[in-house]
């Protein structure tokens, strides 16, 4: 790598456009010598992407270091993202029928096309993830390509700059005639008041402030990269858990993914709605218009931890950890887990009771109560009567073969096959009983199971969540915010005041907000003989910024 030595004696890395120390245009950068105002982006430092273009690595590097490519990636991602909102994503559609059918049924041919293109799961499609990954790569390379040389250039800058550098600043002016020492002192005084850092060299001044705002973009890019890494960590086993836990009132269930360590009892589930009489009367009109409005979904629960070691199959010994109420916006947290109120089912069938009845006389011989979630095999009654539960279908339907079957283990539509034993029929009578339906498959029975009432219970649906990536993601977000504020709310301003014989040269540069800079120069030079410098850019050709 051949380095370039400037006339001022400073040795610059290969590819430098403006000398890091004095700002003189290095011979190579001939194309810019004709411009009236120099391009101050990245201080004219040697950027890898602008210097090398030979190897494969150079080419990839140069591709991703281009802001143009970055912007294109952003725009394409933006358009792609919007496509996913035309129809609801798969996770938001009801699970009443197969996904493909649903889209076609609801949205016709367009829905079908949407599904076929994979837009129903757009945000986890390989090409969308690839776009995000490309943005990530672009962030890293863009930043590295710029931050290192920019840091060097700002660090190495000298107070005294080359004439050509000053002349070609956007804000530049010459005062001829004598400038008194008091004026000089006054200017420095006023610069200090404006919080400028002042460096002096042989009577020349470089006043600078807000340099740290130049690092803002790089800081926020680091934040974004941390954020993206955090999002990827979700796929590392053990980092992220997303389970649903349904617990009936009175039931105690093991919390999934806790290795059997934690149990939860649902003591009571409450659904409250707003009431015109008792709630804020201001809500009256809204409640009239909307009808029922939910006020609270709440599960009163007890969290247990198992005591000691439990052998598989044994009832674990439970120790209460805390009793608490889980509400929307108020999850229950323990260790790294959180339990959220997300769903509920009111009045799920819990128990059903039947009377063993003689069909002809109507005489009854005791009743049995079946716990629909935990039925017994045999129900003994007095006087040699008993009922055997031969089969149980919690969620009954007729299968394709015409035989009864169950859709799920949830007692939505329970059906039973009973065998009723009585002194008259010691070998038993078989009866199939479902809601509103009785079938006697083996001919006419003498006895029947007469429906005698139900008990219901509410069920709460909780999300069991563990997300160890949150800290990293939050940290990334924080860094991003710091960086973006740093870059957006501060400006990097420099004012050069140099004596050239009888003349005083003033030049200034800012990375943005030129009106503010001009106003500041006005104030700083007030009361001195030094003339206000001019803005060399005409209207319309506005500030040339830097940083990306």
């Amino acid at each position, binding site marked *: 790598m051949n380095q370039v030595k400037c006339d001022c004696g400073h040795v610059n890395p290969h590819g430098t456009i403006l000398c890091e120390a004095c700002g003189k245009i290095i011979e190579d950068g001939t194309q810019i010598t004709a411009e009236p105002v120099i391009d101050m*982006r990245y201080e004219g430092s040697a950027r890898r992407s602008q210097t090398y273009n030979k190897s494969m690595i150079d080419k990839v590097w140069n591709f991703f270091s281009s*802001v*143009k490519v970055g*912007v294109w990636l*952003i*725009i394409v*991602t*933006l358009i792609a*993202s*919007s496509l996913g*909102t035309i129809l*609801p994503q798969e*996770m*938001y559609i009801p699970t009443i029928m197969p996904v493909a059918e649903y889209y076609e049924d*609801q*949205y*016709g041919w367009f829905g079908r096309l949407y599904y076929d293109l994979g837009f129903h799961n757009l*945000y986890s499609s390989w090409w969308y993830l690839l776009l995000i990954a490309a943005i990530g790569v672009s962030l890293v390379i863009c930043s590295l390509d710029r931050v290192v040389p920019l840091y060097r250039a700002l660090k190495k800058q000298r107070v005294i700059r080359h004439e050509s550098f000053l002349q070609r600043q956007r804000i530049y002016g010459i005062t001829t005639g004598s400038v008194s020492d008091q004026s000089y002192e006054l200017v420095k005084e006023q610069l200090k008041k404006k919080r400028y850092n002042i460096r002096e060299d042989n009577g020349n001044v470089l006043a600078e402030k807000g340099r740290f705002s130049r690092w803002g973009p790089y800081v926020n890019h680091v934040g974004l990269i941390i954020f993206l890494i955090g999002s990827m960590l979700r796929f590392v086993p053990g980092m992220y858990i*997303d389970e649903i836990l349904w617990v009936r009132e009175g039931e105690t269930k093991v919390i999934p993914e806790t290795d059997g360590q934690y149990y939860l009892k649902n003591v009571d589930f409450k659904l409250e709605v*707003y009431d015109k009489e008792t*709630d*804020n009367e*201001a*809500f009256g*009109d*809204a*409640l009239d*218009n*909307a009808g029922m*409005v*939910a*006020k609270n979904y709440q599960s009163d629960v007890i969290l247990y931890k198992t005591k000691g070691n439990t052998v598989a199959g044994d009832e674990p010994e439970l120790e209460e950890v805390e009793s608490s109420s889980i*509400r*929307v*916006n108020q*999850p229950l947290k323990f260790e790294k887990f959180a339990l*959220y109120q997300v769903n509920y089912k009111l009045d799920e069938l819990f128990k059903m009771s039947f009377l063993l009845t003689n069909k002809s006389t109507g005489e009854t011989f005791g009743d049995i109560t079946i716990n629909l979630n935990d039925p017994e095999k045999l129900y003994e009654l007095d006087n040699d009567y008993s009922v055997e539960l031969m089969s149980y279908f919690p969620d009954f339907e007729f299968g394709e073969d015409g035989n009864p079957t169950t859709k799920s283990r949830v007692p939505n539509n329970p059906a039973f096959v009973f065998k009723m034993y009585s002194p008259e029929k010691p070998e038993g009578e078989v009866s199939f009983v479902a809601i509103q339906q009785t079938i006697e498959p083996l001919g006419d029975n003498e006895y029947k199971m007469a429906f005698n009432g139900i008990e219901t219970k509410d069920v709460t649906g909780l999300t069991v*969540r563990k*997300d160890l990536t*949150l800290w990293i*993601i939050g940290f990334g*977000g924080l860094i*991003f*915010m710091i960086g*973006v*504020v740093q870059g*957006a*709310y501060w400006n990097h301003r420099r004012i050069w005041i140099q004596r050239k014989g009888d003349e005083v040269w003033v030049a200034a540069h800012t990375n*943005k*907000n*030129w*009106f503010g800079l001009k106003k500041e120069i006005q104030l700083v030079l007030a009361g001195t003989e030094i003339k206000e410098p001019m803005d060399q850019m005409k*209207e*319309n050709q*506005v*500030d040339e*910024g*830097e*940083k*990306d």
Partner: protein
Amino acid sequence: MITLSENLLYIAFILYLLSIPFFGGAIKQKRNLDHQQNSSKWSTIGIVISILGFAAQLGFFFTRWSIAGHAPVSNLFEFTTFFGMCLVGAFIIIYFIYKTPLLGLFTMPIALLVIAFASMFPTDISPLIPALQSDWLHIHVTTVALGEAILAVSFGAALIYLVKVIDQTKNSKSTTWLEVVMYGLIATLGFVIVVSAFSFADYKAEFNWVDKNDNEAKVEYHLPALVGPNQGELLTDGKMEPLVSVPGIINAKKLNTVIWSFGAGILLYGLLRLVLRKRIGAALKPFTKNINLDLVDEISYRSVLIGFPVFTLGGLIFAMIWAQIAWTRFWGWDPKEVWALITWLFYAAFLHLRLSKGWHGEKSAWLAVIGFIIIMFNLVAVNLVIAGLHSYAGS
């Protein structure tokens, strides 16, 4: 108390309206090109009226807060009026930095339009559903509104830039697109006028119709039905029969409202053109005569720079924190979330283009216009058209 609160909003609305001619007068008055000095008497009066209006709207906001027991940002009416208030607030701040009455002439009508638009939606004080019962409601929503309002100021400044810079002596793509933007604003006004007029006349027409799942349903129109619902049957006597009807998959009532708004917009726009005998952009151009282009460009850019971090904080970071608490996950690709991301990506692209590709002036102004359209799309269309977790009760 509710009446007091609502009256404060009316007062604010009228004061905002009153401020506009003063900002207009300030521009006519001004002879010297120097924007920094001597803010004229006119613009002083204008800004004082704006501040009074802002104070009145703050009064509306806090009285409503105390009545409801929660910050009034929980439905479309409340959020949109709050957005309008933030827009005025952002303008007031920028006014004191740059002393440009012209910005008032462009921003205040936009704020008025936003508030008038908001008032077309149900204004009932609504109770909070469980998901909204959180302090994050106040934190997240107010920050988003503030961020979007600051970004909207950049739209106001961009509009000034475009009106000034676009050559109105000949037809061009630029003149056409500028007229499209103007028409968009006028169509919003059309929506407000049509809805208010028929609401004043208490127009109600009920229909029986059949929805896409072949269920019978009833729907009440508050505008005469140009477009009727699927197999609609008019139940109210003496009301207009629909000209056409649409399949059940389309929400006929909303479509009808949209057609009315655009129709009224065309009518208004046509009338204005007839009266002015030139493009709206050309008619506005004289107002911008004395403004420094660099200055408006900088205001537009600076608003984006100030608004972008605020929007990021409110619309993405606070949003994610709350989503984690209320919905168990910080991000779920809900349409509103996606459009917040799109807004963010768009302004990120804006900043990159401006900083490194040198997209200043006109190009940058067009970008600010598009940004505002995206924000409005997220506010209006995503709530009313694309259903999702964020859908507020619209009409």
